[in-house]
């Protein structure tokens, strides 16, 4: 109950990550509910060796993420899980995800318009629609079965983020490799540098080319917008920005897309509701992000002695925000363990909260929305090809979700005219 027993170093610290049993492939680990009720701020030991406070209540998670003054991003958002992310390393010139204040705003406001505005999303929509339709046509031509994650979600999200930034699909391997190494918990800093170097060299050439010959892509507009401002980005900064969009930009979305489809197929009544009323698709997308929560918790560091929900936290302490658990808090959501594609309001924390909230969230929403619309319209017979219990889940990646989603269908209907 009281805080005095759980200061660092105790032998009986709870170990993260909590086990994810096979029986509940959609929710947070079941122990989270008990923690949230009994010890909402609890000392844990993380696989990278650091100790931290695990925070599981909705109001507390929002409080911490929403107050960058008390809780800094400087240590790095996944130092609890990624062995290569040393919290004490200096902040790199382009590591904006570890910056606070004006340094951070400089990046956010130049990149933001490319990935967030309604105008930009409206421009990107036809591209995403074409990618989805072409991929479905290719799968239909090849037969009546596929792995929805590897054969659909990964290529579609890869081509979408590549198309947005301005990297041709043929050149995807470089950022695929980088993401695989970055998001594996076990990699060393040296391995990360090894895989980032060819990506950076490639992107440097792209930056030089686009400076000379602007194209209709986000990189060219980021260059132009930055040149018009007070502190234009250097080539090195531009390379870092491209990498920061490409590397986290596809697999998180692909995983939520595949995991989301699996969730709907496992909840046939909700899928039927969606089929009967496609105007529910936007709220279904929000609900999928709430229900699954793509990120395995994110880290902040206390800048001063403070409190979280009345619990004392000392300056320098690390805090792991379990958004997945917070998004199942009965204090914030009625019947939170129920998937409800019409849920409103749905102020979930699946994309985080506060100044560092996901840069790419509107892009992710667009991709998820177009995919759901198109699947319902063109592949009404889509179903799992194996029992749910046989769907394999990823191990060794910090992005949790299915490793494969074997699906089958009777027919893929022609694309026709997009709504």
């Amino acid at each position, binding site marked *: 109950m009281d805080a005095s027993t759980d200061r660092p170093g105790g032998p009986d610290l709870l170990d993260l990550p909590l086990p994810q049993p096979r029986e509940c492939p959609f929710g947070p680990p079941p122990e989270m509910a008990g923690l949230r009720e009994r010890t909402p701020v609890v000392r844990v030991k993380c696989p990278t060796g650091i100790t931290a406070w695990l925070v599981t209540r909705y109001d507390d998670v929002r409080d911490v993420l929403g107050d960058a003054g008390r809780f800094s991003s400087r240590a790095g958002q996944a130092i609890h899980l990624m062995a290569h992310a040393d919290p004490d390393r200096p902040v790199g010139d382009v590591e904006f995800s570890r910056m606070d204040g004006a340094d951070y705003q400089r990046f956010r406001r130049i990149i*933001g318009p490319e990935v967030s505005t*309604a105008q930009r999303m409206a421009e990107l929509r036809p591209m995403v629609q074409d990618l989805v339709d072409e991929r479905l046509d290719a799968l239909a031509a090849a037969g009546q079965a596929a792995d929805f994650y590897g054969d659909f979600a990964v290529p579609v999200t890869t081509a979408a983020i590549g198309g947005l930034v301005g990297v041709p699909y043929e050149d995807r391997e470089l950022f695929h490799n980088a993401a695989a190494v970055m998001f594996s918990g076990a990699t060393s800093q040296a391995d990360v540098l090894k895989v980032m170097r060819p990506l950076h060299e490639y992107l440097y050439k792209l930056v030089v080319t686009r400076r000379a010959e602007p194209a209709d892509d986000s990189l060219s507009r980021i260059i132009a917008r930055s040149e018009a401002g007070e502190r234009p980005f250097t080539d090195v900064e531009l390379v870092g920005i491209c990498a920061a969009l490409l590397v986290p930009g596809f697999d998180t979305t692909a995983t939520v897309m595949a995991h989301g489809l699996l969730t709907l197929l496992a909840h046939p009544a909700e899928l039927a509701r969606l089929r009967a009323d496609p105007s529910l698709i936007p709220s279904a997308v929000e609900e999928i992000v709430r229900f699954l929560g793509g990120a395995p918790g994110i880290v902040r560091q206390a800048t001063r002695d403070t409190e979280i929900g009345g619990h004392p936290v000392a300056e320098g302490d690390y805090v792991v925000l379990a958004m997945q658990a917070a998004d199942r808090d009965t204090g914030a959501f009625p019947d939170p363990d129920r998937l409800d594609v019409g849920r409103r309001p749905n102020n979930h924390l699946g994309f985080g909260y506060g100044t560092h909230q996901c840069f790419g969230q509107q892009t992710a929403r667009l991709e998820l929305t177009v995919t759901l619309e198109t699947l319902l319209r063109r592949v009404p017979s889509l179903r799992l090809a194996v029992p749910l219990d046989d769907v394999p889940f990823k191990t060794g990646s910090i992005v949790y979700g299915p490793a494969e989603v074997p699906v089958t269908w009777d027919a893929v209907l022609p694309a026709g005219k997009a709504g």
Partner: protein
Amino acid sequence: MTGGGGGGPVRIGVDVDKCVASGMCAFVAPGVFGQREEDGVVVVLHRDPPEDQHEAVHEAAVRCPAQVIDVE
């Protein structure tokens, strides 16, 4: 959580210095909030939105990640 949009007119204030160009407000209440082309910062398109927008305005205030929007 949100009180909904019952009652009289709403007054919308924005603290643009804090805005992180997330697009959340314009996504939730597109008729009321937009974003500047050059930096993605919020613009209020409709200072005194009609009653049927009040709920969306309150939702935008709750969901704005940077606590930019103040609704009275």
